């Protein structure tokens, strides 16, 4: 019963938050709503017993991603309300069709899930974090390492794009100027 109440409560909250996110014209509202939604989602993870995931969700999303977005927002000066031209009503029809189709589909056709054999079963008696750790460093070692590479790529990319003077073009600067600049760098 508790589970049901919690589910519906958080479901309502997340849906509301995300609707606000996608509809509001105030960027700040959107950001806040998104952050709230993220946190509410982590609640589901806790309900479902995925504690580790819940923690990650809060740390990564609310801690890192949202902070990044907040910086970004300050940079872009989008604190005032965002004006968005909407082309036509196509979007409304499109989206309603989509929603209708999807909901009908999910509700109307319950999944046959009785014969699923868990390939990597949760080991009883171990905490979620332990379970995660066990599987992450055996089976999913390679994806994990690759994820590390991915983050490195993202970092390098972020640095290159945002930090390395991409606002001017070396292509178009002539050689002499470039030479001067180089020397300056060495000197400084």
């Amino acid at each position, binding site marked *: 019963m508790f589970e049901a109440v919690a589910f519906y409560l958080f479901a309502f909250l997340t849906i509301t938050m995300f609707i606000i996110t996608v509809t509001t014209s105030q960027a700040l509202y959107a950001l806040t709503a998104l952050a709230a939604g993220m946190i509410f989602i982590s609640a589901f993870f806790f309900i479902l017993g995925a504690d580790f995931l819940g923690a990650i969700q809060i740390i990564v999303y609310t801690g890192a991603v949202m902070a990044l977005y907040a910086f970004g927002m300050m940079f872009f000066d989008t604190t005032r309300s965002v004006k968005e031209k909407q082309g036509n009503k196509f979007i409304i029809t499109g989206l309603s069709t989509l929603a209708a189709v999807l909901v009908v589909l999910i509700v109307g056709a319950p999944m046959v899930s009785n014969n699923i054999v868990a390939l990597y079963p949760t080991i009883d008696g171990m905490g979620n974090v*332990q379970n995660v750790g066990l599987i992450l460093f055996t089976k999913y070692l390679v994806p994990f390492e*690759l994820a590390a590479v*991915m983050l490195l790529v993202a970092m390098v990319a972020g640095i290159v794009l945002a930090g390395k003077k991409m606002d001017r073009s070396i292509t178009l600067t002539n050689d002499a100027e470039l030479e001067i600049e180089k020397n300056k760098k060495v000197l400084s």
Partner: protein
Amino acid sequence: MLAPVNIPFESLNLMTLAPMLIPIIGALLILVIDVVKGGLDKSLYVVLALLFLVMDFFSLLGNAGLFSHDGTIMGMFDVMLIDGLALLGQFIIVGASMLFIPLSLTHKRFHEFSYPEFFALFLFMIAGFQFMVATDNIILVFVGLETSSLALYTLIAMHNRDKSFEAAIKYFTMGALAAGFFAFGAMILYALTGSVEINKIALVLASNGYSDIGYVLVGVAFMLAAFAFKLSLIPFHTWAPDVYEGASAAMAGYMSIVPKIAAFVVAMRFFEFLIHSHIVWLEVVLYAFVVITMTASNMWALVQTDVKRMLAYSSISHAGFVMAAILIGTTQANSALFLYWILFSFTNLGSFSMLWISRQKNLIDGQSSDHSYDKFAGMIKTSPVAALIMGLFMLSLAGVPPFALFWGKLYMISSAVSSGYTILALIMALNSAIAGYYYLKLIVYMFMKEPVVGVDGEIYVANATLALRTIIGIAAVATIFAFVAINPLLEFITAFVSKSGY
């Protein structure tokens, strides 16, 4: 409380990981070198990258030797999968990359090559692609895909022009949406089967006789949408022309080959078992994808005024053409896919490189884009050799025998014919005829019109260095004399594909 997990080291089959590790190490090395001593010339990084790619290639050869001896190899807790498809895919990826990387040794200076990060990201990207193809675990596919994509967005943006940023942003945003599709599709399949490994998914679905067919199809639809984005199938193709235009010509050529072959390999793994289960929906949908993509993109290519954009649409069309192999799903078709793509690599990379060597830093006066048709008018008079080579690539793309791509088309259409897809074969053939028009248009401009810009022909080779010439030479020779290599190639590919069970 936690029992120690014992894993025999041999069972890891570490060599399955070697081909991906090599470029990663290379990338790290480049980053380290830059940290230690900055301001080094790009040629160093080019050579380093090339070196690591060569090593990568050799490690692939080693794996290929193992594969042809022992058959499919699983490694790293059965996450890594080295089979024929993985190897062929990686051969193409690494091979095309080796052809691409010397293209950065241009005569003119371009922004992106002044960053060592460019080369590091490039190697990371290759590793990402290699992971994509060398596994049947959807998670790894996803992560690999994202690694390479993120790197690729950056590489495009690093060209540092308004258009390239625009291209990168468009590509990135759509890619994010596609990633969402991919995740959702994987989720549904996971919900259905409790597995994220393609062969297991196939097993489970087969064992319950596709009882949840509607649900399966929803999952497949999402996955298909994600692949269609990557493979630029209509209507998920919209990024392609803009991104190709925004990226540097060399990068555009590269993009038309490598990401797509990676996606093709994954698509082959993913759809083959469904096709073989004779799911009518999938056949119909793929059929529609193939036909619409081929035809519509050909039509759009007809009306382009910029050569690069035309080539972009033509690449979409070629992808649609090759998608037919997935639809047909026989060994012959799958072999044809690889054969086609190898031949396509040479030809398409060659033609984009031809654009690349004619690239100016600024727009030429009176031209609205870097590579408008007008720019090439009368090229035979001012720069005959370049015109001949460009014409050669165009003929090859159009499928005029005996140039490279003809053999791919031949084998591909033959595979359609052999599986009873008569109408499809005809549509494929006739689309080649439509495509003939826009390739011909460039030939017409080059050979039959009077020059508009540059009477001395210098602009056509403005960017040429020995390295670029070499690459173009290799591509041209490969295009002309492809018929010599078809037989060994075909035998090799067929052996690999059939040994992997596709």
